């Protein structure tokens, strides 16, 4: 499949929340059109530990989660309500018993009921867990112990056949190299793991997901580099955390955009996944809708771009909250409400012709809060996208270009006194830039070097990537 060699937008200034070049429609009732002119809300609630003990228990839990989300949305008048489900482990292990009826079909039925009764646009998204483990094997036929690759693809089929509107995943190809790199501040390892190997794995994975989706007339949404770039972001944390420099995590974010966009190159349509903070970069390139999260995912994790993350989002999400009781009822209602009101704010801005104003207030709030936020500010995300499409025909070179561009943007902003960096952030960035500039131009050469350097890592097996 062709890789992106052009930008969908002529100018970063074109980009805004609620609009994408290629809107996607799905769901029940009036349906949701991602990127079609309004922002929509996504609520994601995790069943309590123990609910997965038996299918009937899980079914009850999902019924409660689904109904309480939709009840809060209806009682407050929200026009849209998408429910996303990140499958718990047991569902991925045993999708027929634990996912098919308890989660997928039941939720679709309830979503349809509410759409029927009230006229609210609803949709259900299923995010299949990537159970695959590199030591066992990432491709069909390699894992003769747990059959994880087969299970993952099988789960997509079950989701698509039983009522899911949208299919997503947080795929983990290349994670073994990414983890190694994050722990050691080794950007080359991260680039190899995510920029290169991860992209290859994305090809393998998403070509199949797109097939399944098309066969069943459901939406292949997108992916996120949660297992790697988010890991770096979470460990980097906030101003009180001193484990990883946020300049390092910023570069990992830039690198992972090249991996995330492979889903769309394989035919997925968006919307991509909420925790993909690289969303603005890939949206700038491909013009497809992106779901984002920020201040309303504070229940799941803190981030330094709580407002900025909304700037060009098409969907807004709470990321994940455990289903438990709060003062106002269930946590599901709490987060459906918080998210829904933010969505309302954005849609009101659109009606008033002030969406770009609000976009810029969102962006400016966090532009300089962290280098991670800085490079995701839509103007910078666009520039990173441009650097990527210029090298669009090589996974390696475009990820490297993204990394170098991000580093340059950070350095320039720091030199101009706009973006403050701590001493450690500066030192780390210098080392990253040095490492990046020492890399070869040629992809094959890079791969060869990496196989030499990292080939002995216990969890890394080139066969997983067809190498």
């Amino acid at each position, binding site marked *: 499949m062709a890789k992106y060699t052009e930008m969908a937008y002529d100018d970063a200034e074109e980009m805004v929340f609620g609009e994408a070049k290629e809107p996607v429609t799905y769901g029940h009732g009036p349906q949701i059109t991602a990127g079609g002119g*309004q922002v929509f809300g996504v609520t994601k609630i995790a069943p309590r530990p123990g609910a997965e003990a038996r299918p009937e228990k899980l079914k009850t839990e999902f019924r*409660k989660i689904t109904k309480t989300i939709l009840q809060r949305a209806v009682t*407050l*008048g929200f*026009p849209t309500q998408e429910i996303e489900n990140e499958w718990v482990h047991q569902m991925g292990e045993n999708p027929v018993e634990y996912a098919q009826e308890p989660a997928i079909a039941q939720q679709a039925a309830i979503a349809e009921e509410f759409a029927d009764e009230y006229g609210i646009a609803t949709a259900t998204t299923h995010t299949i867990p990537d159970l695959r483990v590199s030591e066992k094997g990432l491709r069909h036929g390699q894992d003769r112990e747990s059959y994880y690759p087969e299970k993952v693809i099988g789960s997509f089929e079950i989701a698509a056949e039983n009522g899911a509107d949208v299919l997503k995943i947080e795929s983990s190809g290349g994670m073994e190299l990414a983890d190694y790199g994050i722990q050691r501040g080794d950007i080359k390892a991260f680039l190899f793991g995510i920029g290169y190997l991860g992209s290859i794995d994305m090809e393998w994975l998403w070509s199949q997901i797109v097939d399944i989706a098309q066969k069943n007339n459901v939406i292949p949404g997108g992916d996120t580099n949660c297992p790697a770039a988010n890991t770096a972001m979470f460990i980097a944390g906030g101003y009180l955390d001193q484990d990883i420099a946020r300049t390092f995590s910023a570069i990992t974010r830039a690198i992972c955009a090249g991996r995330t966009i492979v889903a769309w190159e394989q035919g997925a349509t968006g919307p991509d996944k909420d925790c993909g903070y690289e969303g603005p970069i890939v949206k700038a390139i491909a013009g497809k809708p992106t779901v984002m999260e920020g201040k309303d995912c504070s229940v799941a994790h803190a981030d330094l771009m709580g407002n900025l993350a909304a700037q060009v989002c098409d969907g807004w999400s709470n990321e994940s909250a455990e289903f438990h009781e709060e003062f106002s009822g269930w946590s599901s209602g709490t987060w459906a409400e918080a998210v829904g009101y933010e969505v309302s704010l954005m849609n009101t801005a659109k*009606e*008033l012709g002030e969406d770009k104003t609000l976009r810029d207030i969102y962006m400016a709030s966090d532009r300089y809060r962290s280098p991670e936020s800085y490079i995701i500010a839509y103007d910078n995300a666009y520039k990173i996208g441009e650097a990527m499409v210029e090298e669009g025909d090589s996974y390696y070179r475009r990820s490297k270009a993204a990394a170098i561009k991000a580093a340059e943007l950070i350095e320039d902003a720091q030199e101009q006194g706009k973006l403050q960096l701590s001493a450690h952030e500066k030192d780390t960035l210098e080392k990253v830039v040095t490492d990046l500039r020492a890399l070869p131009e040629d992809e094959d050469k890079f791969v060869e070097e990496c196989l030499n350097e990292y080939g002995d890592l216990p969890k890394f097996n080139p066969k997983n990537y067809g190498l």
Partner: protein
Amino acid sequence: MLDISGISYDNIFNRYDIVAEKEVTPEELFEEMAPKEEPWRTITQKLVFLEEVTDEVEEALNEYDPEDVINKGLIPGMDINGELYARGIYYLPQLIIAGDAMGKGIELCEEAMREAGQERKAKGKVLMHVAEGDPHDIGKDIAAAMLKAQGYEVIDMGRDVPVEDVVDAVKKENPDVLTGTALMTTTQTAFPRVAKRLQEEGLDVAFIGAGGAVNQSFVHSFPMGIFADEAADGPSICEAVKEGKTWEEIREEYDEIVPSAA
């Protein structure tokens, strides 16, 4: 102020309640459900249309047994109101006002029974209180009105009721159901203490725990506790008790029994 005149509000919120507005009127439901015979029909009518029934009840008591006046006149009236409420035609004030009127009627009937040396056989007996230390009782008052409307005898202990007083009252009154309301998480701690003391006294009764801060996981953590999220859950739970279900069984079948359960 920005010019808000051009806003298309459909993109911002939808009045799902107006879209879903019900059709039936009190008149229609009255025609459909009211008893045909007098004086029950008129008594019912007064209640459904939110008027006083004292005169009609007094008159009826001249001819009929008080038990009949309650069961054939007052309760059918409140049943219709309950149905109107369930369908969202009547709201709380209508229930409360009609309940006030019904209450006066019940008083007259009970007085007549006392004079005749009888005792009212209500649908059931519910003992209600607001937790020790808690002054908020509007929730209890609303629930009490709904239970009385359904024909239950309600003994209302008021608010800020000490734990021992509750235990004593359970002993004395032997209610079918005990209810406790607490608006503050820190007064709800009285409930497990009530449950413990009841157990110590060898008493066992369905104990509805309700109120703002109370939640299911808390109420179902002490013996006898049954969570009620909304006032309208009370009648359904009491119904289940009347059907002979234990509190353990009600917890088991919670989602099927209690209307507000998701």
